[in-house]
């Protein structure tokens, strides 16, 4: 690759998932991120109880992300051929884990409504 610009990168992702699915996923990610920031700012605290459940969800997010990428690319675990492949695989897993953690945390916070006092900080 000669020049890797932000525009090229967007084009690559559009190609990967199809334009509709890619932008739908971007929209979902942006909405969840904004909602997460919203509940953080609203509550002025991070609730460790909610975070615990979010952490429990992380392994599921990691596995789901890896399986999704393998499904999209017609490949599997047997195709891991070198260190960089392991790093990419772990990167995908981490992204999936963090993504689901944010999702689970935000969903709980939105469902429970505003926390009056930071008592929820006790874990």
């Amino acid at each position, binding site marked *: 690759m000669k020049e890797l610009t932000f525009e*090229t990168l967007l*084009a*690559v992702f559009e190609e990967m998932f199809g334009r509709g699915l890619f932008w739908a996923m971007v929209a979902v990610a942006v909405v969840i991120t904004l909602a997460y920031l919203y509940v953080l700012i609203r509550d*002025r605290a991070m609730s460790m109880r909610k975070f615990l459940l979010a952490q429990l969800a992380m392994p599921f997010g990691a596995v789901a992300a890896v399986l999704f990428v393998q499904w999209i*690319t*017609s490949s599997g675990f047997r195709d891991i*051929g070198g260190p960089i492949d392991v790093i990419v695989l772990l990167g995908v897993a981490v992204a999936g884990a963090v993504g689901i953690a944010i999702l689970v945390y935000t969903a709980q916070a939105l469902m429970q409504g505003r926390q009056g006092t930071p008592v929820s900080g006790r874990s």
Partner: protein
Amino acid sequence: MSESTQLRASRRAFLGLAGGAAAFMATSGAPVQAARIKTGARIVILGAGAGGAALANRLVTRLDGAQITLIDGRPEHWYQPGFTLIAAGLKPAGYSVSGTTDWLPKEATLIAEYAAEIDPEGNRVVTASGQAVPYDFLVVATGLTLDWAGIQGFSLDMVGQNGIGAVYAGPDYAAKTWAAMDRFTEEGGQALFTRPATEMKCAGAPLKYTFLTDDFARKKGNRGKVEITYAANNKALFGVPIVSEKVRMLFADRDVAVVHDHVMKAIDPGRKLATFTTPDGDKDLPYDFINVIPPQRAPEVVRNSPLPWADKWQDQGWVEADMKTLRHVRYANVFALGDVAGVPKGKTAASVKWQVPVVEDHLTAQIEGKDGTAAYDGYTSCPLITRVGRAMLVEFDYNNNLVPSFPGIIAPLEELWISWLMKEVALKATYNAMLRGKA
């Protein structure tokens, strides 16, 4: 304890972060653009494929007032790197098909005809309907011709039946080849893979398809009843020695038999025999599945013009171009781009991506009365698929040096998943961006 486990988030911190991110996006997203050159130059580009379209898109952003005319009679644009994926049943035939006009800038004119005559002395091209198109600069980007008549007894309507495949012939033929390969890897028998003795586009493709056939036979549990033979045209398996050695090891590992100095000249579909020219005379090899790849030459209009080399590739007719500048050696206002260029390497889409900025540089410099400085070093890239899910990202130059894009990160001679990911998902997008002049 409860105090220390609380992470405080404030509006100010959030806004600071968002502002920083926005500033980063703004600075990294702004393209650097040279001033446009005012000119009335008439530029004719023969061929509106990967090279022609990419160059036209770049020239319209560099030149103000130039008349850019593309001449190409084919309505379809083919994403040729996709043919292997189609022939492996991973993508439909439509994956590689778009329209020629989808990629052309509106500032350029397309004459939807093939060229019939190139007259570099008179600085004009004559189209099939007899229209004379004069030019100040000519870029020959016609691609190459597959000489199917060079295989006696073969015709394209045989593809897909009786174990005959032809991945190079086009998206539909690649799909038919998949049907034949799918059937073969169920039933078993002798698979035969060939390559021509001429220069060819993507010299890795014949190898990829050999590996893929092996992979499908293994995945179906039928490798035991499949014999695979690769017939090389010379004593090597690939033009770059270090890659050739690696392929030799992989073929040994996959139990692929190799015969050297075998150039296919004829096929007998009735007896399922392929005839090869060898140093010891003609030899017949049996097949139950074969991927026919014919000799490859410059299009007739180029071969019949004064443009080809007189002392090299006489049977193939590639344009006599300088290796580094791609400028014609005898006609200073003529350039060659892509497969048709008579340079020692570079018949791949990735090479086109490296060649386009070179032609652009020398052409625009000449318009300004200056000398161009860009040089093409023979860069050629081949994501050499070794099975579904793995590939080697082989990149090299004129000197047969490996020139990896990601040294120390993506090893060029290792079968890697990441190289497969790039071939499978990132390559077409990069290609499309190149067609639009953006990569």
